[in-house]
């Protein structure tokens, strides 16, 4: 009770004593936890390198500041590969994720106790493992190259698209579905007339959004050998060719800006 009576004067406080105490305690625990973590990290850190960082950054900036523009021609092809990887990976991912989402949504799943948990399990597994880790595994199995990258992107996209899509399916208006069912439609017709039109905007939006993210992800898959611009980035970093690195950074930045613009346009057009 924040209002108390003291000598026939009403006193107001924002919180009562117990609440205030709990909040202080919460802060205390939080700060203590932070200190412990900080202590742990700082024990693993060679501070000389950290204090040296401004020097390093300055040095790096100097080397990056004069990019060899001729290198640009040599990364056009890898950049094309990167975009391909993202696009094809997204396509495969979306194609697999769509039926999976219908299996995972409680209102469209044909079997609540077998297929639904299975579909949810696939979605969660795909989501928890980053595409770079998928690429790491796939490069071991398929060998280095674009294929590993495409499948890695696809595997990660399944979880992302699947989750958002099944949530969208679960939020549809059941009345519309019921109305279609009442016309005597078969289950597949109910899906195509009652459910699909309702989630179509979400479906398109999610797919384009994931494509946009995948462009970013595809730029790094080359670091573990899965093709694309990351291969060049890795080589340039390892040979300390910071000038080339800055050319690659600029190329990535441009591509990302363009893809973000395209994705925003498409989503805007749909909604």
């Amino acid at each position, binding site marked *: 009770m*924040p*209002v108390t009576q003291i000598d026939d*004067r*009403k*006193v*107001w*406080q*924002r919180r009562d004593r117990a609440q205030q105490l709990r909040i202080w305690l919460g802060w205390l625990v939080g700060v203590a936890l932070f200190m412990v973590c900080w202590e742990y990290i700082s024990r693993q850190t060679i501070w000389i390198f950290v204090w040296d960082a401004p020097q390093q950054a300055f040095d790096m900036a100097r080397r990056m500041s004069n990019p060899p523009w001729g290198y640009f021609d040599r990364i056009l092809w890898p950049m094309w590969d990167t975009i391909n990887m993202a696009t094809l990976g997204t396509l495969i991912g979306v194609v697999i994720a769509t039926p999976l989402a219908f299996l995972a949504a409680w209102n469209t799943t044909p079997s609540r106790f077998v297929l639904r948990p299975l579909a949810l399990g696939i979605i969660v597994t795909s989501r928890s493992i980053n595409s770079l880790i998928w690429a790491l595994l796939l490069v071991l199995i398929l060998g280095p190259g674009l294929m590993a990258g495409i499948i890695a992107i696809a595997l990660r996209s399944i979880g992302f698209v699947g989750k958002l899509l099944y949530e969208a399916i679960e939020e549809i208006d059941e009345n519309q579905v019921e109305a279609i069912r009442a016309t005597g439609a078969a289950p597949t017709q109910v899906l195509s007339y009652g459910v699909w039109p309702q989630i179509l905007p979400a479906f398109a939006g999610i797919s384009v959004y994931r494509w946009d993210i995948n462009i970013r992800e595809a730029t790094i898959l080359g670091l573990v050998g899965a093709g694309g611009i990351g291969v060049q980035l890795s080589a340039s970093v390892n040979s300390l060719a910071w000038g080339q690195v800055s050319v690659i950074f600029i190329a990535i930045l441009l591509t990302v800006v363009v893809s973000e613009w395209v994705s925003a346009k498409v989503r805007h057009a749909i909604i």
Partner: protein
Amino acid sequence: MLQIEGLTMRYPTGDLALDNVDLTVERGQVIALIGPSGAGKSTLIRCVNRLVEPTAGSIRLGDIDIVRMGRTSLRRTRRRLGMIFQEYALVERLSVMENVLSGRLGYVGFWRSYLRRYPQSDIDEAFRLLERVGLDHMVDKRADALSGGQRQRVGIARALMQNPDILLVDEPTASLDPKTSRQIMRLITGLCRERGLGAIINIHDVPLAMQFVERIVGLRAGEIVYDGPPSGLDDAHLTEIYGEEDWSGTRAADREEEADAAKADAALKVAARVDLPEMKKVAAS
């Protein structure tokens, strides 16, 4: 008290919202500002506390000019100008008490306001005001849990918490039902009388304005076209303010409506919109 001279406001889009407006509010005088939407009513009162920067003219509160004021002194002056909003403009996620106390922000320092440790005299005043507007039992309710009328009462308490010299009131009843509208107007005008406050009340409900205030100012396209007592406001003036409309026809239609309504449900009539001619009779008598 408040002297507005040659006030002109042109929006960056080129629209002239106010055109050379002169208006003087005496101490303790309550003015109703009427006019169609877009006539510049809102712009006028927002110029007074400079939520909107006027293009030209002067606004004098006592002997200081608000228009030519720096930021620090503007802050000091704003607390003398209490403002009440149409959509209440309470901070929805703060409690009633926090909303009322926010009226003291111009007086207390940042840390005091951040920790919600206001001087006890402010707390006392807040309780007094909440009792006066009839909300002392809802101190710790969150603002978004209140009804429209209750929210507007909190808004009134917040404005008075500033201990203002003048109230600027922007369409206080536009979002309320007719009965609550009357209660709120009675509360505002009553409080002005008790505390000797001047007020400018923007209002589009002409009969309501005529019922509660002694001076009416009509604004049209940024210019004052009527300034006088409610009894002097006739059909010709209304036409000038709002444009051509068959006011007498409206009157006849309203009478018929009234008759039907009386037959159908006498109780409903109390809450029903009180029409223009009836109000005129009240004002004239």
